[in-house]
């Protein structure tokens, strides 16, 4: 059935609600302030100021034109400055808030524009000051529109929050991506999407109700402030947060999540070590977060990939142990041996640089292509020197590959996806040998490499419980312990 622990689901619901509430609260407050400023500094308005208006206008346009996923990564230094870490739910809140503020500011500006000029004029003729005009006339008169805009903003935030998984933000969206998309669990995907639909419906209904019952806005604002304060207190008081010596390990969403749950149990039982598994949705951030000190170790990559990242970004990271080799293989539903491969056949391979090179090396090993001399773990499809069969090699997102067997003659799968594609390693037409450099490794910061706690982590990862869980998940030699 669900094949999935329910408490994770409730946790995700709580995380989503928390993220949406805090980021919604903050973006509505700041959005309102900026929206009012945008309105009153316009030409012929009560506080006309060309410089402030054009500055704000520019800022809002810039922020609104950056795709959320890019914004989230671009502001990592800022996020670290504010909350001290770039991963987790609170980190996601920073980027959510920053993305939603300009959105709501524009909505406020539009809502305020609908207040008749004459009403503002009347207030001025009574001798109202600018703050009085704002609080007694502009905001109350535009309140209905402001609330509808706030509803829209919160609903957009629910959509954005689905991407929070990239920074380990958690929530329903991450659950849908990690378990539903990456691990091919359609039931989970369906349930999370249904829950998101329900949340959106409730928010919309509440917003519509409030836009008509303007006298109740005061009460709602008061409750929201109290709730927000309790969220802040809950986050800042350490005893509310049971942070007893948590040791954060970063991984990438996929079957590894199940393995790491077993590892966490072993660590707790044998070493009283609280492993906190931080799941990322991409391959860049786990190293970035480790280098920043947001996590203590990561287990998701092999040496060639780590080297390329160190080379590109200057990380001070080192591998301390190998875990498993997950041999890459070439699979097909159209042919049963490589001899049957026709000219101009389509071959799908992963698009992340290290797995792309890995797949090309495998194709070279199968004598299908020849790479330019000296090109190994940095090879790309442009480094093919000789392609006698004129094969069409296309690169795709790794998680997309298992879905491509109808269109591609040959698909290169990393082991994470073999099972989901319905294969076992034995069925691979070509596969990597045991001496592959692509064994997974445990990576830590250079200055930490001698800490004893990592000896415990290595022991946990090499423990019989973990090995048997891995073998259960990757049967028939699809995962080979690489440390022996």
């Amino acid at each position: 059935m669900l094949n999935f622990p329910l408490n994770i689901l409730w946790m995700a619901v709580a995380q989503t609600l928390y993220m949406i509430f805090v980021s919604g609260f903050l973006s509505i407050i700041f959005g309102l302030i900026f929206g009012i400023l945008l309105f009153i500094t316009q030409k012929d308005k009560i506080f006309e100021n060309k410089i402030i208006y054009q500055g704000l206008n520019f800022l809002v346009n810039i922020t609104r034109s950056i795709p959320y996923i890019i914004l989230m990564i671009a502001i990592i230094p800022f996020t670290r400055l504010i909350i001290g870490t770039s991963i987790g739910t609170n980190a996601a809140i920073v980027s959510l808030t920053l993305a939603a503020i300009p959105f709501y500011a524009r909505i406020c500006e539009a809502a305020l524009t609908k207040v008749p000029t004459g009403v503002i004029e009347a207030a001025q003729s009574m001798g109202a000051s600018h703050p009085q005009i704002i609080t007694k006339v502009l905001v109350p008169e535009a309140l209905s529109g402001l609330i509808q805009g706030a509803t829209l903003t919160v609903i957009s935030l629910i959509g954005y929050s689905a991407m929070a998984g990239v920074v380990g933000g958690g929530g329903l969206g991450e659950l849908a991506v990690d378990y539903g998309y990456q691990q091919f669990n359609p039931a989970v995907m369906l349930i999370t999407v249904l829950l998101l639909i329900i949340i959106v419906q409730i928010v919309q209904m509440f917003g519509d109700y409030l836009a008509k019952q303007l006298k109740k806005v005061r009460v709602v604002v008061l409750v929201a402030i109290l709730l927000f304060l309790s969220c802040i207190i809950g986050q800042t008081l350490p005893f509310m947060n049971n942070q007893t010596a948590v040791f954060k390990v970063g991984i990438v969403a996929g079957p590894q999540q199940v393995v790491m749950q077993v590892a966490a149990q072993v660590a707790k039982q044998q070493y009283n070590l609280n492993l906190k598994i931080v799941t990322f949705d991409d391959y860049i951030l786990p190293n970035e977060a480790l280098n920043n000190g947001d996590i203590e170790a990561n287990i998701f990559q092999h040496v060639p990939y780590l080297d390329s990242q160190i080379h590109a970004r200057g990380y001070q990271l080192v591998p301390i142990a190998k875990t498993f080799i997950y041999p890459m293989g070439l699979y097909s539903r159209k042919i049963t041996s490589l001899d049957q491969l026709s000219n101009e056949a389509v071959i799908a391979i992963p698009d992340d640089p290290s797995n792309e090179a890995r797949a090309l090396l495998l194709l070279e090993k199968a004598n299908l292509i020849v790479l330019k001399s000296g090109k190994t773990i940095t090879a790309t499809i442009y480094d093919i020197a000789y392609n006698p069969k004129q094969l069409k090699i296309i690169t795709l997102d790794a998680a997309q590959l298992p879905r491509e067997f109808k269109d591609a003659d040959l698909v290169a799968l990393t082991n994470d996806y073999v099972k989901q594609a319905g294969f076992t390693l034995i069925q691979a037409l070509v596969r990597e040998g045991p001496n592959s450099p692509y064994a997974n490794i445990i990576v830590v910061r250079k200055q930490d490499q001698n800490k004893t706690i990592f000896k415990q982590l290595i022991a946990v990862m090499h423990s019989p419980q973990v090995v048997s869980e891995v073998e259960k998940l990757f049967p028939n030699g699809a995962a080979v312990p690489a440390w022996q």
Partner: protein
Amino acid sequence: MIEVKNLTKNYDDNSIINSVLTNINLTIAQGEIFGIIGRSGAGKSTLVHCMNLLEKPTSGEIIINGVNLLDLSTDKLRQARQKIGMIFQHFNLLSSRTVFENVALPLELSHLSKKIIRDKVFGLLELVDLSQKIDAYPDDLSGGQKQRVAIARALASEPTVLLSDEATSALDPETTNSILKLLKEINKKLNLTMVIVTHEMAVIKTICDRVAVLDQGKIVEQGRVIDLFIQPVHIVTKKLTQAVLHLELPIAIRDKIKPQPTSDCSNPIVRIGFIGSSTNEPLLVTLYQQFNVIANIIQADLEFIQNSLIGVSICEFRGKPEAVLQALKYLETQNLKVEILGYA
């Protein structure tokens, strides 16, 4: 008391300077109801907006109760504005506030206590006869009721001046009259100086003491309302007063008359205006008996302008030319305003 001295207002639109008001001078006495009339685009609304600096004049002085508003700091200007009430064509009530809350707004702005605000608002709503609508929202009120709320709101901070910018232009004639009646009452009760901007002569006729006629940003004529009706000088004034007095020559006659007498067109068409007791004289009988001149009435109207009866008639004088001249001279000695419109 309001004094406007050498007021000029230009709009600078992409370095093309548009002159909206040119060299306006007005003196409005305490307790007076002063009308400003003109066609649309004449600048009358801009002028009244300048009187509380909602529009900033390009040059000139606005002196209200002895203080030049243009000399005031922002804070002092706000305080001064509290003593200058204003009402508008579209009422400009806050739709999110009830009648009570709308009237209370200026008092809230001055940070008065809830109790004082309550007492004042109740009093004001009684004054404008809206006590029964205290908790209604503006959307549930008729135009006349909305303007009553706006008047109560404008009076809340006990102003010495009330500016009215086309306050009855969105109302039907009956409601207009009731609002004007209310303004007149308030003027008497509170000795409030009022500036009434309108494009309707009927409004001026009903409540104003004096009036200035504005055309293309300039005052073309000003004086007592009665005088303007009896003897308008400027073409704009003539047209505006005619509209109220229903005094236009029938087209058939207008097309026939000549500006100068000729051999076959020698009968003058005469406009005669009179105030009060003059109307009681059997004028036409006298003309016939004394000068043997027949006055053939083409148009005539009698109007009460506030408490004075005024009459205007247009007659064709028939008789010997010398007799007609004598008759005209006689009329002028009788304190009548006589104007020859042409000859038929």
